[in-house]
């Protein structure tokens, strides 16, 4: 596959993420920040986000695995993930965090 075709495929894939609400306007802002002085910025920040998010999600899963869930500990992880996902435009993830926080507030382990 040649470069132009790959670029088109990427563009379409990103577009579908916008349409599905996986990404929101904040991601567009980040794309707009990439220029010749920061040519790989979007890729770098996504990598950064994913690495940190993976660690946090592992911690969340670990916490949820306990018999007695420490909800306030869980809450601080979810809070952090919500912050970074909203900053990067990961809309669905941000919404998921909000839902998780609500369930956590209600001490609802099943939720």
């Amino acid at each position, binding site marked *: 596959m*040649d470069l*132009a075709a790959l*670029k*088109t495929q990427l*563009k379409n894939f990103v577009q579908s993420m916008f349409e599905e609400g996986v990404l929101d306007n*904040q991601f*567009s*802002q*980040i*794309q*707009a*920040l990439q*220029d010749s002085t*920061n040519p790989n*910025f979007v890729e770098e*920040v996504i990598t*950064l*986000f994913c690495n*940190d998010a993976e660690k946090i999600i592992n911690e969340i899963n670990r916490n949820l695995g306990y018999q007695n869930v420490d909800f306030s500990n869980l809450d*601080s992880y979810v*809070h*952090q993930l*919500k*912050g*970074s996902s*909203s*900053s*990067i*435009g990961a809309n669905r993830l941000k919404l998921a965090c*909000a839902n998780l*926080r609500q369930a956590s507030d209600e001490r609802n382990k099943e939720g």
Partner: protein
Amino acid sequence: MALTLPSGDQSSDQDNWDNGRLARKRQLLTEIVLRNRLTALVVDADTTCRVLEQLLLRSYGVQTQGVDNGRDAVTLIASGVKFNLIIIDMILPILNGLEKATRQIRDMGVHCKMLGVTACSGESERQAFLAAGVDVFIEKPLDPEHLVPILRELDG
């Protein structure tokens, strides 16, 4: 003046992508030109947030520094470094953003604009952060819509 557009399917696809991006950039980054050299400090423990906030500020020509905890922020300011704007996350390690760091910075007699940010906002968080000494409180993400008016105001 006549503008010649490139022809050919492959190159025009790429140009559309680049032109679209450029147009979007102009649209999204509400362009302002600052007259003065502004400086800002970003205090955020989350690397993704801190990097994005700093880059957003830099894109407007604001000289920014970043620290990832409350104590470093207080130490930096105590050393005499002056900032026009401090953007501080509510929850910080070592010295909490809300209670400790913000209050300490204000207690040092620093009157610059402080913008409190947080991932989750509720009325009680907002009141508490404002009471601690921030001037403005916004829910993450930090975006041009909130930032540009503040920069304009600081620029005079």
